[in-house]
């Protein structure tokens, strides 16, 4: 029972977040990359679940699409909130390297359709966690008066918690699925709990936005 609840934790929280967002007319049409990210997660995770549960079709390629789209959206988000010298160069190099790596990984290491792309997930997580630390460093160097009222702080904290904590799950997931390890079923629920924690941070950030 508890395990079946855990398996829905990567679908229900983003949908709930979207409902919360839609209730408030003020934030419905805003250009917010995190909202876009939540929509992407809700759509792709639901699609993956439906494909597997209803049609028994392998859904790993949806997760591979998910990390690419998520990485690009979150890169745009960090582009907007980070301010440091050589930002343009840093983002360009990171993005170009990521795209080249996806192509190389799909062609040589992990099949894009049939395998879970652990390497891509690992690289994306690493880059996003780096962005998160740059954000914190910037906040330490140039502090704002009330960081807890800043929605970006809560968004970044959610992203850091999720991508840093899931890093080892991501990089090992493909090899574990290929080795048919019987304990692998316990990993994804943990990922889902971390995903839920990220959504809780997002919710907190959305509340900040509404009240501020």
């Amino acid at each position: 029972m508890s395990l079946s609840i855990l398996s829905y934790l990567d679908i229900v929280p983003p949908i709930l977040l979207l409902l919360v967002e839609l209730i408030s007319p003020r934030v419905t049409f805003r250009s917010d990359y995190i909202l876009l990210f939540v929509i992407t997660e809700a759509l792709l995770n639901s699609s993956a679940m439906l494909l597997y549960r209803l049609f028994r079709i392998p859904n790993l390629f949806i997760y591979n699409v998910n990390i690419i789209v998520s990485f690009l959206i979150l890169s745009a988000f960090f582009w907007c909130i980070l301010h440091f010298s050589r930002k343009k160069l840093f983002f360009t190099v990171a993005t170009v390297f990521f795209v080249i790596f996806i192509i190389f990984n799909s062609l040589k290491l992990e099949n894009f359709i049939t395998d879970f792309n652990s390497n891509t997930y690992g690289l994306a997580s690493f880059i996003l966690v780096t962005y998160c630390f740059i954000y914190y460093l910037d906040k330490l160097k140039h502090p704002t008066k009330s960081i807890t009222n800043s929605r970006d702080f809560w968004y970044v904290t959610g992203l850091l918690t999720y991508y840093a904590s899931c890093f080892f799950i991501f990089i090992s997931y493909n090899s574990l699925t290929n080795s048919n390890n019987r304990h692998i079923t316990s990993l994804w629920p943990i990922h889902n709990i971390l995903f839920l924690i990220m959504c809780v941070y997002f919710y907190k950030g959305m509340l900040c936005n509404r009240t501020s």
Partner: protein
Amino acid sequence: MQPHIIIALTLFMLLVTSFVVVFIFIHRHQYNKHLIEKEEIKNAYQQEILKAQLEMKEQTLHTIAQEIHDNIGQVLSLAKLNLNTILLEENFPATQKVTNTKELIGKAIQDLRNLSKSLNTDHIIHKKLSESLKFELDMIQKTGMYMTNLKVEGTEEPLDPQKQLIIFRIVQEALQNIIKHAKAQYISIGLNYLPGSFIMSIKDDGTGFDLASYHNSDVSEKGTGIGNMYHRAKLMGADISIKSQIGKGTLTRISLPTK
């Protein structure tokens, strides 16, 4: 890697990220505390500076008041006395002129006495605020150019002498502004003694002014009148608000907590 190792590493990473977040929170908390302390020190320093400035001004006014009373007033009294001792025959051509001169000197002595009272700190502190303000308004009304009114609501309770002096100086500053710039015909002062607070309002029916453009103007264009009023109010911990509209006069309101 075995799944249990991955779970352990995941939990470890969760712990690390939690630590980072907690660290940021603690750092923010300490930084905010530091900012508040810095702000408090800055405010205390500014209060001291303002207090010193006002004390210097009061001392100067006190000296001028004494000088008017003891020196100029004495000289004029002596001059009037001398004129009184002159014995003039009736129908002498200068008699009327001497009488006029005596009256003028008498008026000058009275005006100087009033001015001296208005400047004298001790005089203001030892009288009720309403009495001091009535005295000021009467002086203005005597010019024949203004109608004045003083309204006291509630039971007048003595304020702290220093605060009373500051309030009186704010009123003087406001009245000066009205006389200099407002082209008003009617000036009214309201004193409202409430439990726990004292509210004073100074109202005129003059030309008013654009408060927004005043705030946006250069320091050199601003003058010191309104700035002084704000400084003085800040010094005694009172809130001051000035509302003005062109053609509709000005209302200055001061709210002072008394407990």
